[in-house]
């Protein structure tokens, strides 16, 4: 079996320990690329293996999902008793798999999110881009207004942006709609 500790990013050759945490760049022993490797104690940490679950004896609380197993901790979200196997620790919270799944689906667990659609940017683009061709804003402005209002409550960027883009999109789209209504009235009354 091929084993590796830290490898060269070019040739994937294993770097010797003498090359670790050296201040300057050192040539890779295989491809001679100048490389610097900073390693941390986690590299040598041994993976802990979960011990076998003890079977419950009469009078002891059992796991909700595995009635044969002894309960170790309650889920902090739903309160169900969990064995060590079912306990998922996330950001210091102990959760059961079901709560974890529903939390991920509903977007309540921010640290499990791996993707976000930026509706504020979409709304702003729908308000601004059609202006380049002028007449396309007949469709763009109501669309931007709809998107901004429909997704107002949805989270923006994970970096905690404000709702400024939504506000700008709403203001711009309302102005455009007013402008188009004025043009329409002008042509009807002319």
């Amino acid at each position, binding site marked *: 079996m091929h084993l590796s*500790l*830290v490898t060269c990013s070019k040739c994937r050759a294993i770097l010797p320990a003498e090359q670790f945490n050296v201040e300057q760049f050192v040539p890779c022993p295989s491809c001679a690329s100048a490389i610097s490797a900073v390693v941390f104690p986690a590299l040598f940490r041994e993976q802990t293996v979960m011990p076998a679950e003890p079977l419950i004896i009469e009078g002891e609380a059992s796991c909700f999902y595995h009635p044969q197993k002894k309960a170790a901790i309650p889920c902090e979200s739903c309160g169900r008793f969990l064995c060590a196997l079912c306990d998922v620790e996330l950001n210091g919270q102990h959760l059961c798999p079901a709560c974890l799944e529903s939390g991920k689906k509903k977007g309540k667990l921010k640290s499990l999110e791996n993707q976000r659609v930026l509706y504020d940017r979409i709304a702003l683009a729908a308000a601004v881009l059609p202006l380049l061709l002028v007449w396309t804003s007949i469709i763009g402005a109501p669309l931007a207004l709809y998107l901004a209002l429909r997704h107002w409550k949805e989270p923006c960027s994970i970096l905690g942006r404000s709702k400024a883009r939504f506000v700008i999109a709403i203001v711009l789209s309302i102005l455009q709609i007013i402008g188009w209504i004025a043009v329409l009235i002008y042509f009807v009354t002319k």
Partner: protein
Amino acid sequence: MAKNKEYRKLPGRGGVRKSCRVWLAADHLLMIFSTMFNQEFKRFYLRDIQAITVRKTNTAFIWTGACLTFAGFFVLLSFGLKDTVGVWVLRSIAGFFLLCAALNAIGGGSCIAEIKTAVSTEELSSLKRLRHARKTLAILRPLIDEAQGKMTSEQLVSETSAAWQRANQNPLAPSIVSTAQFPAAPLKSCSGRVHQSVFFLLLISGTLAALLIYFHPVVLIVLASLFDLALAAVAITALIQQQGSDVTPGLRRLTWIAGGYIGLSYLVSIAVGFGLAIAEPTNNNQWKMLERIAEFNPLETPWLLALLIFNLICSLGLGIIGINLNKKFRDQKKAAVPPPPLPVIPATPH
């Protein structure tokens, strides 16, 4: 914009198709890949980071050299001209390349940084420059040391040899098992038809460039422009299609080069437009500009001849190489298709 206290921006920004930035939180690094309307995240908890490697590359040096070469080429061409429009066009193109070279030189040396955890090794696409990598490491090292504890060099060597011993005794030791054994995500099957169209269209584009050297009516110029627009659309489709597909690395790279060339051609045509608009302000609309370009005889206008020959060589070169590579890729795919299973004949009792 509200001040974000949860995440702190780390130096560097990178990525071609998706912009990548790394942000630092109290206990983890957040790598964000952003497109215009979407963000994808990857988290690396400080307690789980095993190593960070930085490898010097020549990318910045090569790009600076290439930009300077192009700038020098266009400046030299402009010296041989008396035509004001041509001089403006060529010098503005040279200026663009000089600006690129200067920006690249200011950026400093380039590198590839990777972050290793127990389960994966990921490239930190935002750290493309050495100075950014150094700054980021200077910020991260004390924080990771705080999360994991500091290690002396003696401890490091002894721990490494102990880890090797453990690995030799137990080949399934999870802490040092190569990540190479984890199965890669399945690749999409790409037929290669769109790629074939790109390279075929490039051949036609080269032929049109050759025709434009001798015949230059407005109709042909409009046709060539529309054709280039279609080529750009097909190239973009091919680039999107090849993401996460089984397209060979060579073909993939060539498609990117073709995409870059099409983008460069577009920039050159913009520069020509600007040059004409500055030198002759009466050309105030697109049609007048096309008529003015049609008036130039490439055989008497060196800058236009140089551009058309450049177009001809690049289009034909990329087209021929691309069709060849695509044929090889399609042949490989055909050869790799397993033969249909033999029909199972039920055993009849004797």
